[in-house]
Every structure is written in C-alpha cells, then in structure tokens.
C-alpha cells in the first residue's frame, strides 16, 4: 500500500483540572500542532465559592476570614486590602503601631509568597523537590511568626479596620528580627542554586515573553508587569499605609520572559527585607488598634458606615488587589467586589504561550503565579 502524503491534524489536549502543574483546579484547553501550541483557552471556575455574594450578606468584619481564603499564600495582604477599603469607606484612622505591624506582616507575606512561588516554578520545570523544599523551609519559619501573632499559620484573620486584632506577643519582634537578618543568607544560597544555572536559563530565557504594551493593555499588575519593564508599584504610586516612609526600590525586568519574572521576585524579596529592617527599627509603642476599630471588632453588627463607595487597593504579592465596597448605610455592604490579581494576570496566558512548546506552557503558567482560590473566588 502506498503511503499517503503526511496529513497531520491538530491535537486537542485538555490539561487539568486535576493536572499537578495547574496549581489547583484549573484547565488549559490547548490545541497543538505537533508539540507547538496553536491555541490555549484557560477554563476556570472549578473553585468558585461565591465570595462576593457571601460578603454582601454578612457584616463587614465577617468577610475577613473569607478573604484569608482568597489567596491562601498571602492571607495578611488580603486582610489589609479589605481593611483599607473599610477605613476609606468609614473614614477610620489607624494607630501608629498598628500601621507598623501591618507593614511587617504584609512584607513577610511577600517573602512567603515569592519564596514559595519560586520553588513551585522550579518544580514545574522539573527540578522536583530540592528548590521547593529549601523555599518551604524558610517559609515555615515565617509561618511560625504568623501563628505566634495571629493564632493561625495561613488563615490569619489578623488585620482589622483601625489596626490589628491583637498586639504582638512578647518576643515576637526579636523572632522576626532573627529571621529578617538570616533571610539574605538564604536568598544568596537560593540564588547560587538557581540564578546562574544553565539548565534553568535555557528553560526560561526568552520563553513566554510579555511585551510592555500588551502587559499594560491587559491590565496585568505585580511582578509580572514589572518584569516586562513597566515601573508600576502601588506602594510607590499610591503610597498607601505608611509606605512613603520607607526607602526601597522597585526592581524592573528587561524583556519580560520567565527568567525576568523569577529574578524580579528575588530582587523584590531583597527590597522587602530592607522595608522590614526599617520597620523593625522604627516600630513605636502604643495601642495596636484604635478605640473605634476595637469597638467595631467587638460588635460588628453595630458598624454602619455612611452611604458611599470606596476602593481600597494594595500591592499584594501577586499584583493589584482591590476591594470595592458600596455602602447603603446598613451594616452589610450593598456591593462587595474583589479585583483579584491572579484572575486578571491569567487572562494573558494564551498570548504568552502561543508558538511555544506544550512543556513551556506549564512553566509560563507557573511564572504568572496564580492561586486558584483567588482566580475563582
């Protein structure tokens, strides 16, 4: 029999929702030409929990434990975002010590998130275990700090409008200082392991390039945007909380490939350490929460912010995390919306993957840094 002319069909592959590389329940509907990606459609919604509707049916304070579960790697940042939105809505002040404790917690969260995501990225690349375990070892120490202050490692539920729920326990600042002092040493070790590694460079350099214009047009935020070379950090742009008091730089990437994203995160951790060192040095005494904030925490049902709307946004480890609240004068928000960075950043996945091999799609997804709890809400 004569062999017919080679006629190749496109192959449709459904990656996920139970694929280990998808960081949770997420599906990539890919069309392949050989091994090259022709089309890739993200399918999400498997972890939908009705977060926004739930928030509209309970008091403002009762939403805090649910925000922990949005991006479960950085619960403290999520708490801060909602707290800032509520403070804007009701015009509440935050105590000085409360502000500093918030900064400490949020920057420690950034360390946790960036360390863990770098470990996961390497896991996706096939460096199974070693970098991830080194990363998780350091993360564990910071989670112990969170546990000592808030009572829970990951579901902290700690930051409240007006400050933080409880003051720091005795000896916490010393523990934090020890970790912050040790962290550069760990980062050096981590970089020795990864940064110059030729295999990693071949897998990541010029893979998943996100051009500047596309990144801005797709409203991508966070390290993903900064790796493409756009100088946009809400800590600098907005100067929320007390960030203008601290000296730190915003590291930028050059071409916006996976390697730049990895390296921007490493540099961001070093900047976070600078902020932490300054905050640990300057932290004042006094109450951790304002009397008004304490009263709200004690009786959430009596808290009725005036009619109006507020949008509180912070630079969460993954990008711009915004909470939009509309109050109708009752003790429950009329509208409660979350602008989740993971969700918005994920929309750009197809553009970064087109033309690359299917194996690169996994690495590119890992470099976006998504948490499905936040994507699906």
């Amino acid at each position, binding site marked *: 029999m004569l062999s017919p002319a080679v006629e190749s069909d496109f192959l449709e592959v459904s990656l996920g929702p139970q694929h280990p590389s998808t960081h949770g329940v997420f599906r990539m509907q890919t069309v392949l030409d050989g091994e090259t990606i022709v089309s890739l459609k993200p399918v999400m919604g498997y972890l939908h929990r009705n977060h926004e509707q739930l928030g509209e049916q309970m008091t403002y*304070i009762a939403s805090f434990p649910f925000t922990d579960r949005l991006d479960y790697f950085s619960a403290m940042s999520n708490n801060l975002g909602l707290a800032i939105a509520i403070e804007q809505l009701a015009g509440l002040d935050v105590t000085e010590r409360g502000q500093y404790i918030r900064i400490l917690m949020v920057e420690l969260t950034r360390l946790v998130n960036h360390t863990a995501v770098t470990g996961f990225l390497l896991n996706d690349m096939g460096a199974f275990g070693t970098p991830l375990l080194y990363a998780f070892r350091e993360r564990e120490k910071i989670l112990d700090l969170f546990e000592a202050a*808030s009572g829970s490692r990951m*579901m902290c539920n700690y930051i409240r409008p007006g400050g933080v729920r409880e003051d720091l326990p005795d000896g916490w600042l010393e523990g934090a200082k020890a970790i912050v002092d040790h962290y550069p040493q760990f980062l050096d070790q981590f970089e020795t392991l990864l940064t110059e590694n030729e*295999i990693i460079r071949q897998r990541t350099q010029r893979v998943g390039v996100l051009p500047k214009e596309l990144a801005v047009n797709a409203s991508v935020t966070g390290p993903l945007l900064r790796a493409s070379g756009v100088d946009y950090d809400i800590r600098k742009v907005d100067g929320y909380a007390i960030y203008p008091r601290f000296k730190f730089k915003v590291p930028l990437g050059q071409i916006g490939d996976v390697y730049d994203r990895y390296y921007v995160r490493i540099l961001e951790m070093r900047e976070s350490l600078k902020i932490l060192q300054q905050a640990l040095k300057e932290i004042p005494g006094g109450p951790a929460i304002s009397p008004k904030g304490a009263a709200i925490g004690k009786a959430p049902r009596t808290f009725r912010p005036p009619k109006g709307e507020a949008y509180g946004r912070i630079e969460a480890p993954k990008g711009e995390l915004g909470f939009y609240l509309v109050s109708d004068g009752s003790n429950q928000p009329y509208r409660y919306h979350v602008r989740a960075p993971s969700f918005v950043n994920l929309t750009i996945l197809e553009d970064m993957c087109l033309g690359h091999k299917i194996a690169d799609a996994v690495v590119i997804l890992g470099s976006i840094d998504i948490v499905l709890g936040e994507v699906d809400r």
Partner: protein
Amino acid sequence: MIGKGVLKGMWVTLLEFIGTYPLGRWVLRVLGVQGTSGLVTIQYPDAKQQHPERFRYFPFLVYDDTPDNLRCVACKICEQECPPKCIFIEPARDEQGRPLKVHGRPFPKTFDIDTSICMQCRICVDVCPFDAIEMDKVYEMASAGRDEEMLYNKDQLLKSNEYFKGIRPVEAAGVDARLAAKAKKVASPAAGDTPSPAGTVPARSPAATAPNPPAA
C-alpha cells in the same frame, strides 16, 4: 549545558546534605563553611509540635468552678456573628417562654457547634461580651461519621476556667482581670440573687435538657 552554574548549585545541595548529619555539621564548622540551619521533622503521632499561646483551633465554652456555672447566657451574639454560621444555640425557657436561670443568669439549653462548618476564625471569641467562649488547642477531632459525631454539643464543649488558664495563661489572666472588674462594679446592687446549690443541674449528663429552675 552543564556549566559553572550547575556545579555551583550542586555544591549548595552537597553542603545541605552534609549539614543534615551531626558529624557533617561539625566538619562544616571546622572548615568554616557556612551551612544552613535546617528544620527537624516532628514525628507527629509520637511527638507533637509545641504551639504558641495564641494557636487556635476550635471554640469551647468556659465554666467557673462547676459545669453548671457556665459564663454563657445564651445571648446568641456569636450565633449571629459567626461567618459560616456553625453555632446553634437554644436558650433554656420554662413553659411560659421566660428564660430559666442558674446562678442568676440565663443559660443555653443546647449549644451546638458543627465542626464540619467551623473555620476557626475566632470571631465568636472577639464578639462575646461575657468571655464565655474561647478557642481550644485540641486539633485531633477526626470522627468516623459526618452527622452527630461532628456536631459538638454543650457537654462536649464545656471546659473549666482552669483548663483555659492552662492553655492560654496570658490571655486568661487578662480575661480574669476584666471579669473581676466587672463583678466589682455590679457587686453592690446584685446582692439579692440566690444562687442555686451547686450540683442541682447535672450539665455533664446528656439528659440535662430540663434543669430545675432556681427561684429567681
């Protein structure tokens, strides 16, 4: 492909490997090479982790001295404020619907918390005006069934103030001071209360749904 970067990375993992063993750590110290401080895995069922004081897992009800003298007055504030709505309270009432009282206070007939719903957020503790509910540290609460076994009733939830002091000395001291100040404030006008003799309300037995109403 394999170049200096990979070799440097291998060197890091080698140091890490050597530093896993006591002898290796000694060698590293003698050679003056900076190793890393590892974390030791805790062999869980045999050894347990030491948790900080604020570690929270599941709520419990505090009683003073005897189990019938519980601080909860069945005001249902925690039931309302609980974000996932896992608390179910029924105040004790007589036939006319008036609240029954023990030690001059109303009390809950039933107080159930569903472990399968509770998300350990501690909001019930924050909102309780009587410091009647606190967070426990016991986390081994697995059960074979998912219905009655996971619904903790009042008898299972009751724990003494001494227990609370044992697990959270700093927080309990603050709570005790606050309650003492409150008691001092109301001490003079509340002299007419006749507390029921201890033990008339067998709160620990499961059949304690209709305790003797004290003359109040």
